[in-house]
């Protein structure tokens, strides 16, 4: 193992014969300039070259194969469905071009549910990221029983959203919920958590935040621990306060993680479904009788499975996909700009 023989072409140990780390292009270039010109290669040598050239791609291929199967194919197939009449039970009908998209666009519920989704997204992702960063900063100190605190902050994440919805459902009951009962005892009228549009968004956002804040905290914590400690020492010697250190050292250093979290929460936030659906008290479960808190994914579900029109459901799904793409890009730009501002100070 320690001294491979020159003709030992077994590169599975991760190193080629020369002992250099394997990097596809480089090792093949070495091979072709020396051996490829003059004499022909032995079968073993040729195998070795192929191995070096293609093995890395084979190693990473499972992800892409699975992605093509469960990611790319459904995406393309959804596009195919969206330009046809397509009933849930009756199956494929005529080609209709962009008519499904037009119908969805003209449906007043679509606009309303898009606004709801964005509102719930802003109410959840915004506070969630701020709280997560602050919590992570607090956990990144010399606390007693650190592991305990760090692990317990993740506990809400492992509770299933269904259980979360049941618990929060009894907190936010319009009449007999804990919060409204408490408000009543101090003489304030209860809040219509299921009927007032904004109140319902707040209620759902708290559910999301409760579940996801801890998860994001851990990601931020990992990023913070990777910040070189000597940066803080230098800052301290320059007389920077803890707050200043946080703003000028920690935040700029965790920017890549921040981008990651913002983008994943954009993707997740715009697809919110289980929380509002389970929060719903009406039998149709479209997000309130007037769709006060219906989201786009619930609109897709309604179109596809309750109105049983998969064509329109697919069209909506594609519109949502494009919306997420656009918003993720906007967020990416915003976070980058923000980081630059912080860095220039």
């Amino acid at each position, binding site marked *: 193992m320690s001294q491979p023989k020159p003709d030992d072409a077994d590169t599975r140990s991760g190193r080629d014969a020369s002992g250099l780390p394997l990097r596809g292009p480089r090792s093949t270039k070495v091979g072709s300039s020396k051996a490829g010109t003059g004499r022909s290669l032995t079968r073993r040598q040729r195998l070795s070259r192929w191995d070096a050239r293609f093995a890395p791609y084979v190693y990473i291929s499972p992800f892409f194969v699975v992605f093509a199967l469960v990611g790319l194919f459904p995406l393309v197939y959804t596009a195919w469905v969206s330009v046809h009449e397509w009933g849930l039970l009756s199956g494929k009908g005529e080609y209709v071009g962009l008519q499904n998209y037009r119908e969805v666009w003209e449906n007043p519920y679509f606009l309303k549910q898009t606004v709801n989704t964005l509102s719930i997204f802003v109410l959840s992702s915004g506070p969630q990221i701020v709280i997560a960063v602050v919590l992570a900063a607090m956990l990144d100190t010399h606390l007693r029983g650190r*592991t305990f605190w760090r*692990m317990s902050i993740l506990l809400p994440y492992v509770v299933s959203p269904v259980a979360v919805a049941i618990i929060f459902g009894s907190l936010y*009951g319009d009449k*007999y919920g804990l919060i409204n009962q408490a408000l009543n005892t101090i003489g304030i009228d209860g809040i219509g958590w299921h009927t007032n549009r904004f109140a319902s968004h707040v209620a759902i956002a708290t559910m999301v935040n409760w579940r996801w804040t801890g998860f994001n905290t851990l990601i931020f914590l990992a990023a913070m621990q990777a910040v070189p400690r000597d940066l803080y020492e230098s800052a301290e010697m320059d007389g920077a306060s803890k707050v200043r250190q946080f703003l000028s050292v920690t935040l700029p250093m965790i920017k890549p993680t921040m981008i990651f979290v913002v983008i994943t929460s954009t993707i997740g936030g715009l697809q919110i479904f289980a929380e509002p659906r389970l929060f719903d*008290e009406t039998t149709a479960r479209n997000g309130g009788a007037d769709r*006060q808190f219906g989201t786009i994914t619930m609109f897709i579900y309604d179109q596809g499975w309750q109105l049983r029109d998969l064509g329109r459901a697919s069209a909506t799904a594609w519109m949502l996909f494009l919306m997420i793409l656009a918003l993720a890009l906007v967020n990416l730009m915003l976070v980058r700009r923000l980081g630059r501002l912080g860095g220039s100070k």
Partner: protein
Amino acid sequence: MSHLTHTRSRRTGLALAAVAALVLGVTTACGDDSEGGGDEDGTTTISVATFNEFGYEGLIDEWNESHDDIKIKQVKVGTWDDAKANLYTKLAAGSGLSDIEAIEGDAIAAVLAESDAFTDLSDPALDGRWLDFAVERGTSQDGELIGYATDVGPEGICYRADLFEQAGLPTDRAEVAALMGTWDDYFATGEKFVAAMPDTAWYDSSEGLSQAMLNQVENPFETDDNTIDTDNPELKAVWDTVTGNAETLSSGNSQWGDDWTASFQNDGFATMACPGWMLGVIEGNAEGVEGWDIADVFPGGGGNWGGSYLTVPAQGDNIDAAKEVAAWLTAPEQQVKAFLDKKTFPSQVEALSMPEVTGAVGEFFNDAPIGEILANRAKAVTVQPHKGPKYSDILQAFQAGILRVVDGSQTPDESWDQFQTDVEALG
């Protein structure tokens, strides 16, 4: 050194405990979702999907004790609407349905429209088992019997005698019945009640009231040839009555929601329209509450609300066994037991004259002779509304429309217009 190893071992211990807690959380959160139905030990498991209360728990135990080759497993969800969402998703997928799927009476017409996906359960041996109208509703246009009727839903009025007393109203069944012969009388009595008891509503929900009234309309949403017609005067009359009384008499709760369920324990309302199967729901939700009774009356004549069917989806692996189980569960002897358990009033002719049914007493309902009362209520039913394939879908939109008025987000006229648009979208 020893100090260091000490803290390290403590930290490891903490980490282990935390991980254990996480794993526990994950596993309990995931729950047991294993599908039965396998033939590992030579037995066939027949899954029966039901909603609300069918009263099958005891029957399933009885079957499982006496049968070694076929076992029954119940899959229960809260409401028909959730069961319906599951039904259509899995019909489209072509797999995943239970061997037997219970269908709510209002939606059986929609299932008949997809009769290819269900097994024809016709069996000459079962001729004459059910009331004619129950068989008719479960039979497709081609004459295939798609669903075995479980129960029917003759409606009476359930009421809280203790709250009636506090409000200065009579509490005796017969006297209460005399106060509610027509809808006008019912609402007028309600006005008196809420004047005396301002914190308690007259009835449980506007949606429940709307169902009770719709079941007295010949063609609520669809004409006899199944053309959708939701802009008809009779429907508008129901709408106007329900929305007009919403503010003063209704609890304002969304039927089947958390607040609605909680209102049984909080003196939230005094009366509700109750078909037989609703008695079981009341008994469950109002556990520990004393004072429930049932009057042998229904405003504006009789009415039938619901009553369900057992169907056997064609996609199942054990169709013959499923058919056998469905026939057994809907046999008079079994439905009588279900009735005694959850008060689902049998749709089987023979069961109606059995002493267990005619002499049945509801202990929870102040020992009311529920068998006799429900039989009278069934006889009072004169109208069987025409419910076409879209009935259940339109009903959902209709009730959402009523809720928009009840919760104050729209005026009755705005909401009525939106209901019409929603129905158009159903196509």
